[in-house]
């Protein structure tokens, strides 16, 4: 339990920085997914389908 007197309110600058960091991290994560996807296709090509089913 967090007591109300222990809670703090972030300053506008802290909130803005946190929001920008979150957005940037989301973009980096999305880019990483695309890189792995595209890289896998480029490296394996049609061999992606060549696996035991």
């Amino acid at each position, binding site marked *: 339990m967090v007591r109300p007197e222990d809670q703090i309110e972030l300053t506008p600058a802290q909130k803005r920085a*946190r929001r920008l*960091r979150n*957005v940037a991290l989301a973009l980096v994560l999305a880019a990483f997914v695309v*890189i792995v996807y595209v890289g896998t296709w*480029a490296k394996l090509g049609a061999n992606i389908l060549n696996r035991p089913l």
Partner: protein
Amino acid sequence: MAMTDDMAAPVISEATPRDFFNLLKPRVMSLVVFTAFVGLYVAPGSISPAIAAIAILAIAIGAGASGALNMWYDADIDAVMGRTALRPIPAGRVAPREALAFGVILSGFSVVMLGLLVNWLSAGLLAFTIFFYAIIYTMWLKRLTPQNIVIGGAAGAFPPVIGWAAVTNSLALEPLVLFLIIFLWTPPHFWALALFKAADYGRAGVPMMPNVAGNRSTQRQILVYSVLLAASGMLPFALGYNGPVYGLAAAALGLVFIRNAWAVETMGPEDKAMAPAKKLFGYSIFYLFALFAVLLAERVVIDLV
């Protein structure tokens, strides 16, 4: 020693993505991207554009990660030098251990991605480059010897070799020539800076050549390295990798480099403004970009014709 956590940064971070981006030393990264691309392009054999782009990205991120590790470890030095006092850690915007985590994680991801999607020789070379820059140069040589940037320059010289290895999965003389050019370029580039920033380096306790051996010796060594650099710039032509257009451009660029170094050599001790050293520092950056640009452009034209 690196700064401890209680010396900097508010408890609740106000760091923006730009602060983290700046930890990657974007201006150094632009040179890394360019030279790595040249190494990748001139290598024989083919590589798919997607894999080439991933290789360049991984090399850039790896180089940036080593920059972040350097800024983590050197925050105490950066804080007392005018040129670097506004970097994210000394400015208090990024906590030291955030920069450390950022550098370690990006190092790991860049090396593993290069290995998995390109090949493990280039990944191993990238890992060695990060190790060499962050551990050998930053933690060991930089505070130990005036030869710090001479030996440490190897880290900055590796990118074209990694680019080459990304395509061929092997090494050859040609990328080592590109390595040699950047390796010989580093001392006159940094010592020109060290001459007019000697007070800063002295205050930070970094044993740069002018602070240890004096300006006179540094000026002479700049000239020696400049001659070696201009000669090494001719090697791609002399060894037949490039044609006369590159040969002429390299000769002209090298002669101007030597002329600038000569102007530095003839600076007297009464010259406090050190305009020739500032000019050489600026020209050295132009020189490396221009040399690699001509080398690349000639190869592109030859390939197209």
